[in-house]
């Protein structure tokens, strides 16, 4: 109940600011050079007849998307910027999943982009609000406008945690928790940090239980 336009504004800055910094150097256009034999469209791309764009198109989408993320973070032209970030984000973040494997770390992010695009997240802590204040055009809004996006994101993230925890219990059962399964998963990955975690998890066999408790 304490959520307000200020909380939503700060959340907007943090989310879009982080995404802008994280994806700033990511080269989406590199997918244009991948052979067509790798292309296995996911349901969203298949149903909407989205195909792999040319390098020029991907560069253009990428530049527009990153600019939209920056505009969202500072809160300038927030509504069109958040809609652009959500639409292009759905395409660009979904693109790599058409190449052999669906990773899940961007799925909730895309849904949160759409939640914020439909919300009034630019009403506080934004350039738009300063402009409106300077023009004395700030109208008081119903507090529900700022509450529902926060609730929606909370529900979405809770569903992510619930689903992840249930999937582990359903597919692996208690053995998933008590064995070195998670450590083995991480050992096969090409990431030094995860390999370090793998050694640590071998010592502490109940790392899996900790991840399930976190999910719960």
């Amino acid at each position, binding site marked *: *109940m304490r959520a307000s336009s200020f909380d939503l504004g700060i959340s907007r800055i943090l989310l879009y600011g982080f995404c802008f910094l994280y994806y700033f150097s990511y*080269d989406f256009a*590199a*997918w244009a050079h*991948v*052979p067509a*034999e*790798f292309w*296995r469209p*996911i*349901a*969203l791309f298949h149903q909407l007849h989205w195909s792999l764009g040319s390098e020029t198109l991907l560069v253009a989408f990428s530049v527009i998307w990153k600019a939209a993320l920056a505009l969202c973070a500072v809160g300038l032209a927030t509504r069109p910027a958040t809609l652009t970030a959500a639409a292009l984000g*759905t395409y660009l*973040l*979904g693109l*790599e*999943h058409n*190449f*052999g*494997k*669906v*990773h*899940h770390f*961007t*799925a*909730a992010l*895309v*849904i949160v982009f*759409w*939640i914020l695009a*439909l919300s009034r997240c630019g009403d506080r802590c934004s350039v738009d609000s300063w402009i409106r204040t300077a023009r004395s055009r700030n109208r008081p809004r*119903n*507090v*529900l406008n700022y509450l*529902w996006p926060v609730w*929606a994101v909370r*529900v*979405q993230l809770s*569903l*992510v945690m*619930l*689903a*992840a925890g*249930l*999937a*582990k219990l*359903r*597919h*692996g059962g208690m*053995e*998933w928790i008590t064995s070195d*399964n*998670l450590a*083995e*998963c991480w050992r*096969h*990955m*090409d990431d030094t940090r995860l390999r370090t975690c793998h050694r640590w998890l071998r010592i502490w066999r109940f790392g899996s239980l900790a991840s399930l408790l976190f999910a719960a």
Partner: protein
Amino acid sequence: MAEWFSFVSRLAPDRQSRIIAIRKAAPVALVLGAVFLITIRDIVLDQDHHWPISSYPMYSGKSKPPTLLFGVVGGQEVRITSVSPFDHSRLISALSHNMRPGERHAVLKWVLARQPSKVRAIHLRNIDGAVTHGIVR
């Protein structure tokens, strides 16, 4: 619950403003409700092909040694962990898909072309260590 109703009635004190608020919120509520319902359906049915809606089954299966990709440098095998823009797991998964022989040859040729010139050949080894596919420069 009483606290909730009191909170809502404070936000929209009269019937008219409540109707306006509901009319405004209805489209957004329908979209979000659909997303959440499909998510719950995917969780219950254990389905994972509606990205960005998902049942998040990552790491839930029993781990097994994956197929590995190797390059041959000076007669010795070197593990190839990623080929831009693919990360390791996506590359291995993509190479493990069912493909026609011509397609497999094309993708392996592409991977080899993106290796340093000292890599003379690449091949895939399965769980048992047997070479399943390969290509020489």
